[in-house]
């Protein structure tokens, strides 16, 4: 997997690039907006990590230019601006995800992984299947090995998100943002409690746990 990192701060770029390389990615770097745009327009990358404020050309303008040129490489925006408005602007410009600085490296890794393995658009799918786990999005029911699991609406959405990212690490922030649409830190580990409830329902009567906690990062729904 080949990534392009467009980040003007040398130190930040160094540590992100190092971390990504150690995680098995090939990382190219650009320190300036126009260079980044030039490199990205070749289209040879699997994903772009773009800092929002760049010299030469603003990050959002860069993304908008790429999208106008029909280049659909997934983009993760990095920004120090974390207000809801700022996120909306970033996503409107054509970004696929928005990560506020400072961030945990595990968070960045999980989000890049999510971008790279994005499934088909949510509207098109009616059924999700992960190993023995099946979810019918129209009938809104879930079965494991044919046995029906009774879920509350929010638990259903939580599981849906996990199934769409099956096999990937999903962080608490990602869950909070995507399942609850909250962009603040609820202090108490509310997400953990929700996940452990879901886990109980999923694993009840089964030996093999499906939902795994990844230390220091988040959760992963195992693909059996």
């Amino acid at each position, binding site marked *: 997997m080949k990534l392009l990192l467009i980040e003007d701060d040398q130190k930040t770029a160094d540590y992100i690039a190092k971390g990504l390389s150690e995680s098995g990615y090939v990382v190219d770097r650009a320190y300036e907006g126009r260079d980044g745009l030039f490199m990205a327009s070749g289209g040879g990358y699997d994903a772009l990590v773009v800092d929002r404020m760049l010299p030469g050309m603003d990050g959002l303008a860069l993304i908008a230019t790429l999208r106008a040129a029909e280049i659909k490489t997934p983009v993760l925006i990095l920004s120090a601006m*974390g*207000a*809801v*408005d700022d*996120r*909306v602007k970033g*996503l*409107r410009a054509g970004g*696929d*995800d*928005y990560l506020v600085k*400072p961030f*945990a490296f595990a968070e960045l890794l999980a*989000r890049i992984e*999510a*971008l790279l393995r994005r499934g088909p658009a*949510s509207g098109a799918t009616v059924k999700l299947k992960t190993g023995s786990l099946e979810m019918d999005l129209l009938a809104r029911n879930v079965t494991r090995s044919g046995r029906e699991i009774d879920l509350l609406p*929010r638990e259903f959405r939580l599981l849906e998100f996990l199934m769409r*990212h099956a096999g990937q690490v999903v962080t608490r922030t*990602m869950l909070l*943002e*995507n399942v*609850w*649409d*909250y*962009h*603040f*830190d*609820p*202090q*108490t580990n*509310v997400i953990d*409690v*929700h996940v452990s*409830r879901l886990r109980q329902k999923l694993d009840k009567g089964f030996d093999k746990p499906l939902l795994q906690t990844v230390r220091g990062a988040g959760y992963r729904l195992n693909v059996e």
Partner: protein
Amino acid sequence: MPVTARGIDIRRFLNTNAFRIAAVYFVLFAASVLALLFFFYLSTADFLEREIEATVDAEIRGLQEQHDFQGLVTVIHERSAPGGRADNMLYLLTDPLLNPLAGNLSQWPREARQMRPGWFLFPIKVSTRNGPETHNVLCSVFVLGNGDHLLVGRDLHDATVFRNRILTTLAWSGLIALGLGIAGGVIMTRNMLRRVEAVAKTTEQIIRGDFAQRVPLSGSGDEFDQLGSNLNVMLDQIERLMAGMRQVTDNIAHDLRTPLSRLRARLEVTLLEKPDTGRYAEALRETISEADQLLGTFNALLSIAEAEAGSRRDTATVVDLAEIARAVAELYEPVAEEKGLVLRFDAPRPVNVRGDRHLLSQAIANLLDNALKYTPAGNVALSVRGADQTARVEVADSGPGIPADRREAVFDRFVRLEGSRSTPGNGLGLSLVRAVARLHDGTATLEDNNPGLKAILTLPIAPEQAEPASSDPALAEGA
């Protein structure tokens, strides 16, 4: 070039907007006064002239009625005798060669020799108490049937005197009106300037750093008072914001320095010890966790600052507070259950407020988080009600509560009660709740729940006609 203080004063005065306005009004005022007086004079003069002509005409008609010569002479004698009934009338009857026959005029005037019909004007010498004077006479002449000539005229002296008196009166009243206009303009301008200068002086003092200054008000409630009181309200708000900023800076200095130095010390001590990978890893993990806490505090401070700055006010839409609270209750319900607490949610009907969904969610989440954290056993109730144009969110718990004298203090940043230090938290939750309440023109207070604590958030209810806006779809599918 030396300029006297007075010179500066006058030049400044002439340059002011107030003076310009006053000057324009004065010119308009003067023009209308002059026009009024001019027309008054014209119509008076015209009226006088017609009066005189009418009198002369009537006399002529009366004399023409005398058919025989002797009768005419008698009437002229009668009328022109001193003390006769028309003492400023002049009569002269002459033969065809203009030799006087009767009347009180000594000779036929040169101006009327042509004998054309119409009006003639000629001067006569009159001796009065003040000595000889020249008076103008307006006359009409014609030829009688026997060839004699008749002249009837009227001395214009009285009319002239009258007209001059009117002219003088008008001139004086014009002058007085203009004088009053100038004086009024000057007083008004001065008055306005004084009020404006008071504002300017206050702002200058504030610019120089004296933030306690306020614009003096006259108490009349006029536009200047309104301007002044608006400025004062604005200054109060700025002062409060600045005080808040200063407090934040102080608190950051105090409260972030401690964990930062602890973090630094841990790393330093680890380096001093014998190199050991296992110990290093442990130290790094602890450092990361402390850094995360610091970042959490930082983010909380930023959220508060944003809410206080009111920077999201423009994004405010109509939202259903009951629905927002329901979602938060649902988020925390498993937490309550795990702790063995009963979380009750009660919001019978929608309560629409104008606000920011994310901030309101966060505020209610903070209240609920506190209640769940500090209630060891029992129940927590979240309710949303709307009455009297006020939306009311209540979070009541059966926990230990907060002593009455500390209930205000806990809204300040970083304030944590003794005994709560063992519970995780940064002392910023309630500060955010209050900042969010203020941003939405609402209040955040704490009350006794007997037993326990009741946190109350009130917001103004949005006007009926507005439709509740849906949540932001752009963020729903981000990853």
